[in-house]
């Protein structure tokens, strides 16, 4: 990807970077190249004072590896973490384990890898998805790995903040306890997004803006400084989007 053409994943990276606040302690987990790039972009632009821990980063120096990282989350030192799901529902539940019946699955997936604990202990969760369709955004997930914010547990530190997809920026609405449409991405109408989401996005009577245009400056930092750092962590992803 170069020139004025923008890859859908580049757009997502920029949207994610804008959702990172300066000063936050941010981490990304396994299989998360888009959030990793978004965090690096934020750090190279408006959020110079974030502390970022990117899983797989050879420069990451935490002495006890993931144990230490999980410990930071337990102690309330993690402000923002990124998760995804093979299914996400209206309540913001995510499924990373199985499609179909747990004992007799149609599709067995990698599993949650601590998503439940991190979803509860990080102050903010942003979900990202590589696609946006009714197979992913379902009325009810087949298996719950992590919830957005549930009242059945006595205490949790944080909750779901946003969901970034190739079509839309969604957000978790605390009042309704549900995922709603926050903004459209260029090229997609509210109607496109509703047609590709398996539940009601609460758009009735609300004005849904399009995200601010991606600037040349954002793209040039992404394709320059961020890309050279990201290649050390996610070489195959970088080759796929930007060539080798």
């Amino acid at each position, binding site marked *: 990807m170069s020139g004025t053409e923008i890859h859908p994943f580049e757009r997502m990276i920029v949207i994610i970077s804008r959702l990172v606040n300066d000063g936050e302690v941010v981490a990304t987990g*396994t*299989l998360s*190249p888009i959030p990793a790039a978004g965090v690096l972009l934020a750090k190279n632009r408006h959020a110079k004072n974030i502390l970022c821990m990117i899983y*797989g980063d050879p420069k990451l120096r935490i002495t006890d*590896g*993931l*144990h230490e990282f999980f410990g930071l989350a337990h102690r309330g030192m993690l402000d923002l973490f990124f998760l995804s799901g093979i299914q996400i529902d209206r309540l913001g539940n995510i499924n*990373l*384990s199985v499609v179909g019946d747990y*004992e*007799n*699955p*149609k*599709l*067995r*997936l*990698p*599993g*949650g*890898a*601590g*998503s*439940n604990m991190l979803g509860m202990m990080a102050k903010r969760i942003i979900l990202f998805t590589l696609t946006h369709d009714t197979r992913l955004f379902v009325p009810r997930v087949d298996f719950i*790995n*992590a919830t957005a914010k549930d009242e059945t547990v006595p205490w949790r530190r944080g909750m779901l903040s946003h969901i970034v997809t190739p079509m839309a920026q969604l957000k978790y609405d605390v009042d309704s306890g549900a995922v709603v449409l926050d903004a459209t991405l260029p090229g997609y109408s509210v109607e496109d997004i509703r047609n590709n989401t398996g539940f009601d996005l609460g758009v009735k009577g609300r004005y849904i803006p399009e995200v601010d245009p991606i600037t040349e400056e954002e793209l040039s930092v992404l394709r320059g400084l961020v890309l050279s750092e990201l290649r050390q962590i*996610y*070489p*195959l*992803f970088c080759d796929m989007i930007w060539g080798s």
Partner: protein
Amino acid sequence: MINKVKTAAEAAKMIRSGMHVGVGSGMEMNPMPVIREVIKNGIKDLTLTSVLTGGYVVDLLIGAGCVSTVQFPQIVMDELGLAPNFRKKAQEGKLRLLETI
């Protein structure tokens, strides 16, 4: 001083069928020479715990038929995608899963 140095083959002999084995996994720092010997020895019925996420060692041992139970938070080949043997055996119901979500 007792000499504790062993060859991979000698180390692998300590792993017998039916044992509960922990393996440092993910996609880095995998004890591949020992794992190859375990597979060559025809070990069966292992309970395998990956520390932390399981990567190709876990998938290889599952694919080679060494594992009956796997305890895991996640089994994935990182950037290379899903773990095919784990997925296949779990979908066929041939693997007992102790999953930490």
